[in-house]
């Protein structure tokens, strides 16, 4: 017995079959019959050379990275569904990517313009790279030259920087979401703890390829993920001459993966040299400071004098003063000496010796005159004396005596008797003759003229 289906049941079965067989697929084709009704959904027909299929993009679907136009070649991620009321099947497109150079180019330009206007490419959003990152995250294919180059360069320049690779597809339709997720995980945004060790910079790289190959890096979602990244992103996508939108958004664009590695990791040698220089400056500054301190201490020590030193200083002072004193005294003495010299000279001129000499001369002179005078005087006197002598001789009593006269002397008192009356009878007398003397006694006197006198002395003259 034939089973009889109702139309609805048939359509439902078809729908189940379709939706069960095609969970999610990628379909490529040309856009045609593009309609944008007021509802906001986009209806189109996707076709190739021989066949076509209906498609719809709901308003709620992921935002279009570019504006669809009839004739564009696109690839879509979609699911099949059947619209039962009309018995039609269609694709519900969830994601659209451009295909074909024209479409790709136009999509690229449209997105670039839009994001640029939004400011995603602005310099002020670009973050600086750390000098020496704690860790590097690499978003790239785990196989191929790119990762090898990056590892080689970092190994040569600074091997001890840890590297964490998040492997992704770098082309094809599933690449973009993977790249977005990679960036999120490396930024520590995934629920789990951040992958050890802590990453401070991300390199996003892939090798050269066609515009189509590079497409994932021209998508809005990757661009926004790069913009959102808390960590700085260095992009090295395609050849040196390729510029993707990711390159514009990235914090730094490198022409090649090796260049990216060089930008991210410093040269150990360079740092060593820098450190050596700084170290040298440090040591020199240290030496200078130490010398400075030593000098200050020494200067202070100098000022801090030991008693011996103080004494020494005073001795010097005293010596110096003494020197000056002596010199000054010497000078004064010299002055006085000169004065003395002068005075001496002057004195010399009035030397008593001189005067004495003069006087002596005078004296001598006078003496001579005196002597001469006395001589004369004496001569005169001698003459006189001689004369008198002669005269005297004539009167010499002894001479007289020669003539027989005699000198009588009273013995009692020696009186030379000139008068007989001076004698009394019996008085002793001495009579000096020319030769010899007579001692006699008076027998009597006779005055002149023969008058007899009594001795006044009381002597009774005997008669």
């Amino acid at each position: 017995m034939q089973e009889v289906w109702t139309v609805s049941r048939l359509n439902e079965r078809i729908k189940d079959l379709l939706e069960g067989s095609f969970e999610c697929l990628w379909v490529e084709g040309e856009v045609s019959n593009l309609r944008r009704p007021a509802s906001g959904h986009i209806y189109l027909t996707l076709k190739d050379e021989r066949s076509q299929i209906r498609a719809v993009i709901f308003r709620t679907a992921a935002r279009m990275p570019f504006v669809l136009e009839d004739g564009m070649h696109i690839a879509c991620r979609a699911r099949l569904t059947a619209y039962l009321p009309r018995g039609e099947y269609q694709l519900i497109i969830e994601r659209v990517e451009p295909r074909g150079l024209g479409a790709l180019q136009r999509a690229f330009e449209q997105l670039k313009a839009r994001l640029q206007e939004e400011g995603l490419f602005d310099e002020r959003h670009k973050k600086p790279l750390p000098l020496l990152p704690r860790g590097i995250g690499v978003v790239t294919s785990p196989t191929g030259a790119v990762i090898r180059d990056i590892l080689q360069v970092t190994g040569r320049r600074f091997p001890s920087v840890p590297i964490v690779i998040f492997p992704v597809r770098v082309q094809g339709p599933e690449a973009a979401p993977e790249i977005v997720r990679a960036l999120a995980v490396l930024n520590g945004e995934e629920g789990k703890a951040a992958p050890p060790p802590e990453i401070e910079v991300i390199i996003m790289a892939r090798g050269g390829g066609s515009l189509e190959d590079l497409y994932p890096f021209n998508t809005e979602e990757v661009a926004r993920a790069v913009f959102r990244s808390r960590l700085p992103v260095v992009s090295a996508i395609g050849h040196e001459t390729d510029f993707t939108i990711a390159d514009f958004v990235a914090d730094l664009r490198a022409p090649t993966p090796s260049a990216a590695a060089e930008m991210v990791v410093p040269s150990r040698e360079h740092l060593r040299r820098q450190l050596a220089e700084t170290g040298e400056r440090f040591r020199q500054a240290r030496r200078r400071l130490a010398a400075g301190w030593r000098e200050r201490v020494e200067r202070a020590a100098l000022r801090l004098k030991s008693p011996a030193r103080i004494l020494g200083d005073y001795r010097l002072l005293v010596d110096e003063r003494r020197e000056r004193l002596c010199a000054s005294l010497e000078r004064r003495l010299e002055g006085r000496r000169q004065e003395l010299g002068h005075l001496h000279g002057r004195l010399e001129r009035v030397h008593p010796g001189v005067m004495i000499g003069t006087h002596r001369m005078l004296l001598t002179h006078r003496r001579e005159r005196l002597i001469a005078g006395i001589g004369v005087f004496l001569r005169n006197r001698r003459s006189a004396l001689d004369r008198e002598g002669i005269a005297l001789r004539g009167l010499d009593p002894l001479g007289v005596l020669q003539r027989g006269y005699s000198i009588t002397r009273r013995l009692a008192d020696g009186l030379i008797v000139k008068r007989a009356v001076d004698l009394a009878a019996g008085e002793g007398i001495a009579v000096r003759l020319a030769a010899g003397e007579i001692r006699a006694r008076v027998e009597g006197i006779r005055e002149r003229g023969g008058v007899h006198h009594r001795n006044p002395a009381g002597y009774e003259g005997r008669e």
Partner: protein
Amino acid sequence: MAKDKFEEALKRLEELVKRMEAGDLTLDESLKAFEEGIRLIRFCTRKLDETERRVEILLRDEQGETAAVPFLPEE
């Protein structure tokens, strides 16, 4: 990881050297600066001399968990 301190260590060292070259540190400060400077230089030199590599790759296991495993690049 003490690696994060390299950059700071270098900056701090540069600061110290500048201050010492300016010359107006007290004796105490000078001594402390010497010590710290020498420490920093040793630290930085050590960092520069490390040659141990550490490359890991994040792999998703069956449960969708991400785990880091050592990476050996194909030659």
